[in-house]
Structures are given as structure tokens and as C-alpha cells.
């Protein structure tokens, strides 16, 4: 029993970690694009990014099942590369990435928007391209937003329930994460174990958020 407890917690954090890394890689360019574009597709992209905030997780889970099942075109395409998204860890990552996207993109986007335009233009007139300006001027000056976005995405992934249940099923050691385990144990009237999971999640979420708020106070903007 103890083994499964740690296994489940490990899986939970592995999922949150992998999801956050992927989110940073795809979320930063999206946030940058949304912050500075004048393109007409901006509202559409913004809507897609924000959808998970209002959509029931089950809807998202359902669509992932539908579109990524081995019978579907997308699912069979990925299967050629040995990637399966239904009832697998990869599926959990996919679902979590989509579901936590707004939590990462929104703070970083508003961080970018709060940077005076003259800083960016100054960098350009000093001969620096967009990429260098991004890494040397923009990112270092939005540290608080970057931290909030990253931590919120991480914490939100730990707390995710609906999408994970729909897409992952409930396979111990593979797709069973802590939030689902709690539900499971309560159903089985196993309150002791449910309590342990709940307490761990509660404490971790509390300390993660506390750290962010303390750090954000200290970071010089």
C-alpha cells in the first residue's frame, strides 16, 4: 500500500513537472505573440487559450479521447511514431498541457504587456534583433510574471482531476495521480489513505503558493 502511495505521488509530480516544461516551451512564444501582435487572429487564439478556464474538464477530456483514439486520423497518425494518448501518461501530459495553458500564458502575457515599449525599441535601435531582445531584455524584466505563470501551471496540474480521469483512466503507476486516488479511496471508504493524499496535496499547494508570493515581493521589477 505504501509503495502505491509514493508511486502515485511521484507520478503526480512527474506529470506536473513534464507539463510545466512543455508549457514553458510552447507558452512563452504564445504569450509573446499575444502581447505584441496586431494581427486579426489574436482574439481567436486568445479565446482558444482561455477556453479551459470555462470549459468543463470533461468536455476537453471527451474531445481528446475522440480525436486521439487509435481509430481517429490524428490518433493513428501519432501511433505510427509509437505515441498513444488514450489511457497513457502521454495522454495525461497532453490533457494537462491544454488545460493549464491559460494559467501560464495569462500572467506572462500581461508581464510582457507591462514592459514599456520604449525598452524594446531601445534594444532595436541599439542593433539587437527580436530574439536577443526577448532573452536579454524582456524575460529578465518579467521575472515575477514568469514565476507566477510557471508555478500556477505546475500547481494547477497537480490539482487537475476531470481531464486526467477522462483521458488517463485510473491505472496505478501509469495514470493514477493523487487527485484521482483521493476520489478512489473515498469511494472505497478508505478515509485514512484519502486523508494522507489530501493532506499532502493541501500542504504542497499551500507552500508553493506561499513561496511565490514571498518571492514576488522580493524580486526587483
Amino acid at each position, binding site marked *: 500500500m505504501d509503495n502505491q502511495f509514493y508511486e502515485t505521488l511521484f507520478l503526480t509530480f512527474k506529470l506536473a513537472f513534464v507539463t510545466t516544461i512543455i508549457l514553458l516551451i510552447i507558452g512563452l512564444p504564445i504569450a509573446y505573440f499575444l502581447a505584441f501582435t496586431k494581427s486579426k487572429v489574436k482574439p481567436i487564439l486568445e479565446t482558444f487559450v482561455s477556453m479551459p478556464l470555462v470549459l468543463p474538464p470533461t468536455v476537453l477530456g471527451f474531445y481528446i479521447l475522440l480525436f486521439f483514439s487509435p481509430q481517429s486520423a490524428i490518433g493513428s497518425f501519432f501511433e505510427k511514431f509509437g505515441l498513444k494518448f488514450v489511457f497513457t501518461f502521454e495522454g495525461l501530459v497532453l490533457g494537462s498541457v491544454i488545460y493549464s495553458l491559460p494559467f501560464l500564458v495569462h500572467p506572462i502575457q500581461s508581464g510582457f504587456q507591462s514592459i*514599456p515599449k*520604449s*525598452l524594446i*525599441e*531601445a*534594444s*532595436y*535601435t541599439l542593433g539587437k534583433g527580436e530574439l536577443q531582445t526577448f532573452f*536579454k531584455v524582456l524575460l529578465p524584466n518579467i521575472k515575477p510574471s514568469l514565476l507566477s505563470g510557471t508555478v500556477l501551471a505546475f500547481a494547477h496540474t497537480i490539482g487537475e482531476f476531470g481531464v486526467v480521469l477522462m483521458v488517463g483512466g485510473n491505472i496505478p503507476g501509469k495514470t493514477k495521480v493523487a487527485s484521482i486516488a483521493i476520489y478512489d479511496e473515498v469511494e472505497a471508504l478508505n478515509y485514512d489513505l484519502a486523508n494522507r493524499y489530501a493532506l499532502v496535496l493541501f500542504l504542497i499547494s499551500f507552500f508553493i503558493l506561499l513561496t511565490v508570493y514571498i518571492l514576488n515581493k522580493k524580486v526587483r521589477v
Partner: protein
Amino acid sequence: MIKLDFVKKVNNNLTLKVKKEIDDNEFIAIFGESGAGKTTILRIIAGLEKPDFGKIIVDDEIWFDSNKNINLKPQKRKIGFVFQEHALFPNMSVYENLLYAKNDKNRANLLLKLTELEDLKQRFPHELSGGQKQRVALIRALMREPKIVLLDEPFSALDMKMRESLQDEIIKIHNQLKLTTILVSHEIAEVIKLSNRVFILKDGQIIKDDKPISIFTKQKITSSFKLNATVLDIKDKENLSILTLSFGSNIIEISVSKKEAKELKVGDSIIISSKSFNPIIEKIKF
């Protein structure tokens, strides 16, 4: 030699039309009310904004040509731009700000020495005064050895004393480094002090182009001193009118004939001149 010849529609009420040539080492001031398009001209020269059509040629190098579809990026134009609000990178020290522009420690040290900022080079922008920030912004713009220095009202956030010392600094640097400088300003005193040629911009067009002193004094007044003042208040008193005027941080009251006062209204800019007849002079002691 800079050749400007371009048109840009800024908004429904304002279309910029500029056709001018600027010689090397000139110090140009673009003067006009806010909203006249002064800053846009600088931004177009810098490549931060694109004209609708026309040409910009600097020393036979085409920076912009709508016919040939050439539009050099700001990065490729040899300019130094000083923004109204310094625009120093908050995450870098003074020294890092300079080296970011160009990794040339010798030049950075030279410029720091020239502006007497050597002691502050490890400081971060938030640890500097307004005047120091603007001086750093100025030398940062000079790091890449620009052909043209563009100053967008660099003194507007500074108090009188800092303004004057920065103005002296700019004249010194302009002469020492043999720069071509274009300054945007709406302060007459500043323009007279710094520039050797003024473009008066009104509703998007340069309506006058001359030496500052001949532009700002419509007719030659044979007086020994002049003050630029703004009318704050006009009061009638018996057969005279009392004008309350502000110039710089001073406010004075003078009396004029009712006829003279009739042509003035509150908010007008005027020139007061006086003949050198029995003025009171007192040496300022520090």
C-alpha cells in the same frame, strides 16, 4: 548628409510631409506643439515607423525607398536614439547597459569619463537620479558610433538645473564627436541654446527652416535682453491692463496699455524685451 523626403498619414487629422536636407555636424531642432508630429519624424528616421512613401538617404546609403521597396530595419541604421523616458534596461547596471549596445569596454570607459559617470558604472538604473539616467541613456546611444543622434525631448522629465547641465553635456558631446544631432523640443530656450537650425513643424509640415534666433524674434528688436513668457492672467485696472506672466519658474506682473492687452489672451506665448536702460544687476552667490 541626410536627405529626407517622405509622406506619412499619422491619423485622420495629421499627415506628415517632410522634405529636407541636413548637412553633417548640424544640430537640428524640430520645434512645434505636441501632436504636430515631431516625434514621428524621429521614429521614421530611426526605422521604428514606416512612411507611406518617399525616400530617406543617409550618406548615399538608402535607408528607405518606397519605389525600390527598401526599408532598412532599425538595427541596420546607424543611429542613436534617446527616448523621452531614458529607456534604460532595469535588469542591467550602467556598465552592462552600455556594453549591451556594443561590447567595447574602451569606448564605454571613454564615454563614462566624458560624462563623469565613471563612479556610477556598477549602479542599476533605479539607483540613479533622473539626470544621471538620461546621461547614461545618451552615452548608451553613442556606443555604436552612430551617424545621427536622435533626441526625443530628453529633458522633459528633468528639473531646470539638471536640464541645463545635460544640455551643456550634449553640446560638448555633439562638438567633440562631430555628430549630426536632431532634437525634438517644444522649449524655445532649449532650442536657441542647442541648435544651429530649427524646423518649425505645424500640422505635419515644416513651415519654417532657419537659425533659431531669427525664427523666434519675428522682427529684429534692438533690445539687449528678451524673455519668453506665458500669459497667465489679464486684469483691467483704470486705464491700464495688468498682465500676470510666467517664465521658467518665475511669475511676474507687468502693466501694459489696454490696447496692447487687447491682442493678448490667457495662454499666449509672448516675448518681453527691454532696452538696457538702468537695469538692476546683482551677482548670484553660491
